[in-house]
């Protein structure tokens, strides 16, 4: 649905040129929710704004639905934008217009006949659960409600793509969750492709199918969210993951352990297969759990355990080998004495 090819965006500042986005190539498939994670200044905001050409890329190509947007200008670009919805961190509703007027603004932009506007606004308000707020001004709404209006406005012209620019970053955790559920719901019902950028890893964990991690304007890692959670390659990705799935065992505890400390990771169905107990029965090794949980990412279980293995060196390494054979990922954090 979206192809980004060798996209770069440079900015001229007093201190010379700054690369906002540096040679990014990405593909977002139809119907998926794609998350772009990074700290502020990583270039994710520039990148998402290049997708609907709110910012014109310095070089590279952006294709949405097969159409190269960088070739468009003026009215052609305006028409293409009708099919790309966008929501923002600070909502950006017209404060002097009611909820219904804000939504009908988008419909009028597409030249919707006026007799169809009223019913369509009602339909959209129903979808985002704000039917009772039709004639209220944005100032009277909560943050979550404002974002729902933003979503209704973005979806007004039945876009193929929805861009979310830090859409939940100004909301409290509960509201964030309800907005994420709404986005997921919309994604499933309308088969709309969603690209979201965020600095909150839990957002990605909650709803994204695939993700990319950005740093210094570049994409440093991308793939299925589950795979990246299971096996992050870069230090930054690990850092992001540890913000939602943390398995740090306190130092004092580690010091008291004299066995081999291992971190064992089970992917998918194997997570519940009792592999650990099989191992403990098959080898003369004692196991001691220090930390552990099964996380569900995209409804797939991901088991992560930190344990201390005690026994003869050869037995311990055989036990580890056994775990690896059963498709667990084992990382030895500290060797025993």
């Amino acid at each position, binding site marked *: 649905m979206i192809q980004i090819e060798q996209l770069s965006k440079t900015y001229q500042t007093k201190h010379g040129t700054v690369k906002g986005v540096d040679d990014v190539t990405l593909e977002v498939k139809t119907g998926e929710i794609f998350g772009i994670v990074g700290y502020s200044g990583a270039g994710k905001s520039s990148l998402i704004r290049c997708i609907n050409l709110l910012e014109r890329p310095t070089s590279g190509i952006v294709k949405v639905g097969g159409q190269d947007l960088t070739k468009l200008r003026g009215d052609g670009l305006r028409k293409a*934008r009708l099919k790309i919805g966008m929501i923002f961190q600070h909502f950006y509703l017209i404060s*002097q217009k009611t909820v219904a007027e804000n939504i009908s*603004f988008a419909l009028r*932009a597409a030249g919707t006949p006026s007799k169809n506007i009223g019913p369509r606004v009602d339909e959209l308000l129903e979808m985002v659960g704000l039917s009772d707020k039709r004639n209220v001004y944005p100032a009277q709404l909560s943050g979550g409600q404002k974002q729902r209006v*933003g979503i209704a*406005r973005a979806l007004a*012209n039945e876009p193929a793509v929805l861009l979310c620019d830090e859409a939940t970053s100004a909301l409290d955790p509960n509201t964030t969750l309800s907005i994420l559920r709404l986005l997921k719901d919309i994604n499933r019902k309308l088969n709309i492709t969603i690209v979201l950028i965020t600095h909150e890893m839990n957002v990605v964990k909650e709803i994204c199918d695939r993700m990319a991690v950005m740093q210094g304007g570049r994409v440093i890692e991308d793939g299925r969210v589950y795979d990246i959670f299971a096996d992050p390659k870069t230090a930054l990705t690990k850092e992001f993951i540890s913000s939602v799935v943390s398995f740090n065992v306190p130092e004092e505890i580690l010091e008291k352990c004299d066995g081999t400390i291992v971190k064992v990771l089970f992917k998918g169905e194997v997570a519940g297969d009792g592999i650990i107990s099989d191992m403990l029965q098959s080898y003369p090794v004692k196991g001691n759990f220090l930390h552990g949980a099964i996380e569900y990412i995209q409804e797939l279980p991901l088991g992560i355990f930190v344990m201390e293995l005690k026994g003869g060196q050869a037995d311990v390494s055989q036990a580890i080998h056994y775990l690896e054979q059963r498709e667990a990922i084992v990382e030895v954090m500290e060797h025993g004495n």
Partner: protein
Amino acid sequence: MGIEWGRIIELWPEIQVAFYQTLIMIGISLGVALVIGLPLGILLFITDRGLFWENRPVNSVIGFVVNIVRSIPFIILLVALIPLTQLITGTTIGPVAASVSLSVAAIPFFARIVETALRDIDKGVIEAAIAVGATPWMIIKDVLLPEAKASLIQGITLTVISLIAYSAMAGVVGGGGIGDLAIRFGYYRYDNTIMIVTVVILIVLVQLIQQAGDFTAKKLDKR
């Protein structure tokens, strides 16, 4: 400097005429300022850097002309525009004639006020409208003007009050008006009564306009 009540009654017809002349001058020049200054202010804003009609040459030219007119002292503008006034109104005397210079002064004044009011709008709201696929005209009509409504009304208030002050100078070219009355009788003839009466009328007028402006701006603002 006592007030002679008899003098007020004596000159009351003249005061009424002057008041009426002031209203004509302000009415005409405000009307012109709105009709020409508002689009000019919008143009100044939307042709600026990073906005949806970015056009440096147009922006610079308009900005330059606006600055020139604004830097000329009004009293000089009043005299300098006598030929133009003659051309447009066929006369150089009276409130309608004085309205030409007042309008010329009010247009750039109001245009800058409009531009400043539009600048205060959150850029994100404009961007959201662009992202939705709105036409430039829709953005002006449904985003810029409504969002700046309250500050535009405050700006109109400011313009009217400045015009009242400017119109006092219109007497120089025989424009008439309350301010002219104050100068002719109060200043040149040391007629304290008329001086005080006219000043009181001006104070009341300015107060009323300011309050009406504040009230309307507040009433219309939905934030």
